[in-house]
């Protein structure tokens, strides 16, 4: 299967639910050439920083540029790895601690490809996509998250 050339909207408002993930998995049952799926889920941590605990992250993005970057990452990943399909979803707006903000899903005929491809995609997203996370503490103060 060729990579889809149309730029998709990767963003979802709010947290990504486990039902959404289940539905995405279930849709792949008709693709009977797939032997291996690999899924990455980013979950918001209740980190404690200077006695304050993170209650939620509020995500914003330069949406057009972010979707263009996600598209570039998709294309590059299909070039590098032998995948059957790939799906990426990222939250915008408020995601509470314990909830999921990033869902990356890659599938291939054989397992060797999916491990390398998934790590590549996640690292590319963290490094190159203009998304901004505002960590909201329990006392409603905030700080801007920086990826490590």
């Amino acid at each position, binding site marked *: 299967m060729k990579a889809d050339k149309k730029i998709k909207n990767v963003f979802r408002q709010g947290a990504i639910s486990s039902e959404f993930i289940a539905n995405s998995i279930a849709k792949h049952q008709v693709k009977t050439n797939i032997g291996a799926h690999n899924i990455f889920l980013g979950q918001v941590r209740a980190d404690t920083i200077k006695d304050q605990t993170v209650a939620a992250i509020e995500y*914003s993005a*330069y949406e057009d540029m*972010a979707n263009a970057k996600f598209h570039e990452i998709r294309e590059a990943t299909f070039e590098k790895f032998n995948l059957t399909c790939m799906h990426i979803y990222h939250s915008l707006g408020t995601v509470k601690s314990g909830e999921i903000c990033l869902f990356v899903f890659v599938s291939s005929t054989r397992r060797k490809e999916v491990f390398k491809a998934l790590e590549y995609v996640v690292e590319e997203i963290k490094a190159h996509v203009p998304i901004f996370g505002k960590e909201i503490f329990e006392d409603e103060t905030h700080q801007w998250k920086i990826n490590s």
Partner: protein
Amino acid sequence: MNLKVKYFGLIAEITNCSEETIPFSKHTVAEFLDLIFSKYPALKNKDFKVAQNMQLVNIETKISSAEIALLPPFSGG
């Protein structure tokens, strides 16, 4: 040329707006930043990247597009 300038995250907090139109008569990103720093001195010690027409640029790049964005460190995922 009128530039549509977009601000995000911490940068938008400092500029207190997410988008504005700024007239610009010079050439490079460096000259554009002089203008921005004179308007928002608090941005001088902040870490950010500049994008022109959704592509990252460096300070020597010539400004030729109407859409410029100031992007603080990315923290998706």
